[in-house]
């Protein structure tokens, strides 16, 4: 019952949406691209898209810095 977020294993929570996962990870930066098992999730679906067990999530922060 785990998922991998940016290569780090964490517990899977039933019915957790992308928005809630981002909150749990403290990923507050607004410009992120989220991929579940390599498929891009549309920003408009963040609230409704539920994270499946065993999935591989990439949260790419589109920040360039300095």
């Amino acid at each position, binding site marked *: 019952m785990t998922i991998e977020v940016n290569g780090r294993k964490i517990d899977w929570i039933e019915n957790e949406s992308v928005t809630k996962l981002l909150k749990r990870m403290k990923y507050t*930066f607004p410009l992120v*691209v989220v991929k579940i098992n390599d498929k891009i999730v549309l920003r408009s679906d963040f609230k409704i898209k539920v994270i499946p067990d065993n999935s591989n999530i*990439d*949260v790419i922060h589109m*920040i*360039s810095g300095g």
Partner: protein
Amino acid sequence: MLEGQIPIEDYESGNTKNKWNLNKIKLEHKTISEYNYIKKDIQKGYANRTLYINLNEGIIKEKKVTEDMKKLFTGGRGFGLKLLWDSIKSNTRWNSNENELIITTGPLCGTTQYPGSGKSLCLTISPSTDIICDSNVGGFFGPYLKFAGFDAVEIQGKAKEDVIIIIDGEKGKISIETAPLEETNSHMISQQLTQMYSSEDDDKSRQKISIVSAGMGAENSYWGCLNFSFYDIRRKIPRLKQAGRGGLGTVLRDKKIKAILTKVEKFDGVSNNPADSVTLAKVGTKLHREIRDLDRYQCNMRAVGTVHLVEIMDEYDLLPTENYRFGSFPKASKLYSQNFYKLFTKIIPDGCWHGCTMACAKTVDHFTVMTGPYKGEKVTVDGPEYETVGCGSNMSIWDPLWVLEFNFYCDTYGLDTISTGTSIAFYMEMYEYGILNKKRCDGIELCFGNAEAVLEVIHRIASGDKGEFISIASKGIRRVKDWLIKNNWGDIGIIEDCGMESKGLEYSEYVTKESLAMQGGYGLTLKGPQHDEAWLIFMDMVNNSIPTFKDKAEALHYFPMWRTWFGLNGLCKLPWNDVEPSNNPKTDDPSKVPEHVQNYVDYQNAVTGWNVDKEELILQSERCYNWQRAMNVWLGRGSRKDDWIPYRSMGPVTVMEYISRRERYDKYLNEKIGISEGKIEKMKIEEKIKIIYDYRQDQYQKLSDAVYYRRGWTPNGVPTPNKMKKLGFTDPKMLKILKDKIITDEKAGLNIWGGKYNNKEKNPNDGIKYW
């Protein structure tokens, strides 16, 4: 005019108006030397000559730019390196007579069709590091220097008294004149000279002048920056952009130059005489549209400039507070961008060169100065940028108005805000530990959060205070470390680990403890810890997209090379990745912004008429990057020991730091180092710190190994003659220097990998001596 902007005639900045008797000031000038030159058009981005000035002998002459020079060094910073190589010696130091101050442009510099195309690159031997420092800067000087007829200006020697250098592209004349009565501080002298030398008494004429200066702080410290002016027709003042790092302003004042002025007759969108103006316009228009449509949803640079980073850094524990002890702080929200947004003057385009739609050069107008010689005056403050705000948090000062005051005085005194802020943050930590105290600080209570004390330090520096503390403190962290250790005032380990400098240069404002790649981005650099070579924190620490040493080494090869390219061409890095096309996430490598890379390929080809591809752009940089490292080797400082970084940038130095992020570090001991949770529970904090200390230092050595190998350098960090030859260099003197250094290292046992590799791990090349 764009929707919502204020018409020029309707804007009143509210600043105090200075009145000077400029005729009297000018009458005191004596001409030391003059030189008339033939004006020529720019050809495909190049003026095809550079300008040499020797202040000892009053020599002014032109040097030809050869095709070979373009092929090997491209332009900008590359030309600067070539000129330095031809003029200095291996024992040249910042204040040696033969040291040079060089300002370069680059073939794309001065273009108005593509955003971010007005940067100058400045080079010298730095007082802080004793090696080459390069710093890029906006403002009008670079483009005007080129349109006046020169790809670079190179100044050697020292004048006997204060002088100004005038490059008059209108008359085709260069002169060196004494300047005894002009002010030294930048916001004043740039106004005086702009008024004095404009052809007519109107804004259009004033806009054709740009001035380089450095103030009293630059004269009395190692933190001197260069201020480059750009006349703002709305505010009716020359505003300032800074070449901040490495003490360029200190060298300017050591040469007794009060200012360098350049003036153009005219310029327009085709002054660079591009080979293909249609393509140039097409690529430029595409990016202008992108910035206009997307910036507000992305970095919001047009509204708040780089300050948008403050809240992000705070939220991800990366904002340096109390000398990088922590990465976030409860009071940090006081410095979030909305607080500066309230103060910024709005709906005025704020580009630092014509045609920059990104327009991130924000200002606060009619700011009332609160302390020092200009107390009570109303001035325009250029900035603050993220780094300057980060200095506030690093010194634990949480007042936006104070940040503006600090920003204003650092600029006009010619002090680099980063070196000033990072140094004082270190002094404050030493004060907290009793290693420094009021007596040792010449009566200043330099504790965290003491905003008045910080301003007193910088006012005293600018006034030339000769007290022991100010004299040493103004030379930066490295010299203060040596002073504290010499006096036996504290634990050497604490002093060395807490002072955030590498190679003698102070760190810029990012916490790197949890990003090994960014530690390399600061340490494995040419000039010292400045983030302009690589900014990999999110890629590494958050996105976890470069997990292995090999991945990190690849990033620490590609990004420094890519970012170097902007400096070869006279460009600003920000329009590359501070706005991204909406389909960028779907590309193969979003971190590189592939569409923008292709823009730059098209852009360089359109101006120069070349036919290069994206690999060739990297090659252009690789030549320059390796040449600069090789010159550092020649100057005695380009090897592994010089790339070492203080432990504060790798992990927690003190018990308090460990406790503040206990969960994170305990987890690290368990997951990365393999210590059981039960054992961790029983360990003392000091023991845990020591284990992480040793582990992370070894990680940094392994990273250095991987990076040196990827860059084609020896295990001691020296570019090999083979690598140089592959890049096209045949200079026998340079090849011999590198060969001799490698032989000396071999004899001294320095050609060995630095990491401790166990049976399961491999060093980068498995023992083959490719050097």
